[in-house]
């Protein structure tokens, strides 16, 4: 059975087509879900893709968290099902308090579209179950606000090898306590084929797809 994955389109999302394409290439039944719909149609998992939801003219993600679809995302998360936020999706998850912390402007106060190496810190999440602990992944970032900050001790999923944006503790991605909601700044869909520079993002995409097929281990 192909897992059904909903990729949410907010007004201003711009990576939804890339994510759907990459997930379908990995065998998932991925399709778009509109932010104004309060129903995810029984999807097995959901991705909040990158972009500039509602223009991000206010704090990133601050408006998107109030979109009707977010209730459905929260319900899915409460149900233990996989929720992945990539870049702007991570910012939205943080605003919605589905993961802890916040993303502020990059240390250099510039937008950065660069390749990064990240390490897998925790293999017990929906985005890392196909990875090995300590595994290095080459995946690009593309953001102005990716400088992670948190109080307390978030559950860290990924860290940068060379910190590009000043993120606290080199954190590139975190999960909720249960490990079924993951937010990360790097874009796995952009590292989904050697022809694009790396296929390492497939480890994260296949982790998500596998997690949609079986109950979360956590």
């Amino acid at each position, binding site marked *: 059975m192909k897992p059904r994955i909903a990729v949410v389109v907010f*007004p*201003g*999302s*711009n*990576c939804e*087509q*890339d994510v759907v*394409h*990459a997930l379908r*290439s990995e065998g998932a039944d991925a399709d778009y879900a509109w932010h104004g719909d309060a129903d995810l149609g029984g999807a097995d998992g959901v991705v909040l893709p*990158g*972009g*500039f939801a*509602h*223009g*991000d*003219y206010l704090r990133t993600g601050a408006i998107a968290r109030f979109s009707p679809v977010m209730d459905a995302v929260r319900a899915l998360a409460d149900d233990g099902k996989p929720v992945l936020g990539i870049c702007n999706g991570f910012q939205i998850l943080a605003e919605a308090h589905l993961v802890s912390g916040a993303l502020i402007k990059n240390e*250099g106060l*510039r*937008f*950065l*579209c*660069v390749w990064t190496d990240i390490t897998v810190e925790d293999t017990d999440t929906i985005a890392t179950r196909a990875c090995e602990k300590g595994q290095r992944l080459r995946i*690009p970032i*593309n953001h102005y606000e990716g400088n992670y900050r948190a109080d307390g001790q978030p559950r860290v999923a990924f860290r940068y090898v060379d910190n590009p944006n000043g993120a606290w503790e080199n954190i590139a991605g975190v999960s909720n306590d249960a490990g079924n909601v993951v937010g990360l700044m790097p*874009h796995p*869909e*952009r590292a*989904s*084929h050697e*022809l*694009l*520079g790396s296929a390492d993002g497939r480890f994260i995409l296949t982790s998500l797809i596998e997690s949609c097929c079986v109950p979360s281990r956590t």
Partner: protein
Amino acid sequence: MTDTVPLYAALGLTSDEYERIDKTLGREPSHTELAMFSVMWSEHCSYKSSRTYLRELPTHAPWVVLGPGEGAGVVEVAPGVMVAFKMESHNHPSAVEPFQGAATGVGGIVRDILSLGARPIAVLDPLRFGPLSDERNRYLFDGVVRGIASYGNSLGLPTVGGEAIFDPAYSGNPLVNAMCVGVFEDLEVLRGRPRSSGDLAVLVGSKTGRDGIGGASILASQEFEEGAEAKRPSVQVGDPFTEKLLIEACLELKRDGLLTGMQDLGAAGITCALSETAASAGLGVDGDLDAVPLREAGMEPWEICMSESQERMLACVAPDRIDHVVRVCAKWGLDASVVARYAEGGRLVLNAHGTEVTDVPAQALADGPLYERPVLHADRSQLHALDPLDLRWPEPEETLMRLLASPSIASKEWVWRQYDHMVRLNTLVVPGSDAAVLRIPESRRGVAGQPGIALATDGPGRIGSLDPYIGGALAVCESARNVACLGARPLAITNCLNFGSPEKPEVMGDFAASIRGIRDACLAFGIPVTGGNVSFYNESPNGAVHPTAIVGMLGVLDDAYAHRPVRVRDGDVIVLLGETKPELGGSEALAVVHDTVAGRAPALDIDREVALVRVLCSGIGAYAHDLSDGGLGVALAEMCVSSRIGAHVALPPDVDPLWGLFGESTARAIVTSRPNEVEALLGCGLPGVVLGTARGARLQIDGVLDVSVADLARVYDDAIPALMER
């Protein structure tokens, strides 16, 4: 406006033009009508000084679907795969307000592509500034890059190329050109006109405000003076979020078959869109300005007609489809307002508050005046008199390092790392090589045999200032070489012609010569010009900018994945194709070391250029790199730095290290190959010489210089960040 200046003059019209309007209407124009004529007949909108010359350009080829005259050109790159592309300038707004000027420049060219019903897939930005040693130029450069990044990134459009070149000639008047490329998701090209009378003109997108009144049209049609900040209010403010919604909404309207035509609103706003769409269909239009959604109350009719508020499109819609159109736009949170209805009779009639405010022939607005400006071929004998070989030059190693540290040559990664160059997953060759390579979205699966495109921009301003004919021709040849170095076949060009005031005869002489250069090169390559833009009045108190004809080249690869590699392999033999002559005139080396642009332009040999491009496209050899700014020395250094490998080479005995390494003789490229394929490469029919081998970690040129690749890379990579992040 003072009492002594008549209104038409304050609006930029001449007394002759005013009389012509008077005669056309058979009466004095109303205030609103005068305002409309002033923007439509501005240089920017009417091309009144350039049209006669533009007609000389070749525009036909079997693969041309749509030539100049619409939002953009369209070519068929493979059976059933159509690509739209065009370049435009936003020089003056960017000089006044770099962030918004550059941002809205991207927005405008994206809407040009969208107006045809194509999905924009890539942006390129050729830029020219004064030297970065000057704080003002750093401010402009930083603001322009941030503006492009802000707008393009937010739209989810990859910025995949362009140029950044620095020269005192652009101090006070930077050039900010933007090129957009789109693909059609179906086989329908929308035109900027309704299908028949009775169709509705529907304004979609942002509300209309007082921002940018006469912005592009007026700013771009006058010389630039000190105190330009006072013009800031006429620079438009961009809202990329709304533009993103506009893209998705317009493509959905097209998918649902709801449009009979579409036109973007740019310079001259509603006036331009209504008059051009009506005139193009041989119709008139009856409009109601009260139906235009406004940002603020109390706007005068002439302000509504002149406003250049961004993120607006005009959709031509059959009356029975309007409800559906409004529904689709509402889903994307956009206004869709019926502002007019196309009608027989050819008159553009607009009402406001129940009163008729304009009644003019739509065609008269769209057909601006046409001028045969006085032309003078400037005397450049003094410039040409300098022989750079007579000057004292430092050791070649020092010259090379200074060239690599020159911002025009140095790595532009600081620029393109601020641009999202990856989104949409089509970018196979990212910025930093001779050209960008994109697979077209339909060919995403990574299967061989799927077509791709290669994109490059070039505009050798220094050469243009010494010989505008050669400058124009070389813009075509260099960009052809650039895409061919990635294995792509040149297919068509767009251009942006950046010149000084057309009221100066010597500027018109340069302009005419540049056009001839472009024409001759295009004819030799057998490629058409499918559209472009003319930007005059690029002047500062120091005079006109270099005659800068910038070409945007579209190349095609039958198999996107079969592009040439961007790195040289260890052990490969390096061959120099083409002829190296004792030429240093107009070279980057002369500019960097002696701070001057002078001498004779390098000799042009268009037939040789065509032959070289043919060889490069044949796929012979492996890695290839074009020789242009900085000559062979810089090309070898760039090859080493980008490939992270050294090279051991020797110059031919009859070549002097100075002009051999830093001269910019045309029609040359380095091509590498496995040792056993060198014979084939040398037998390609072009002059060719084996320079040496790629290996080790140093660039060694026998008896001339010996530098570690790490040192080359440090200088090359750090130059711009060191200037911009201090």
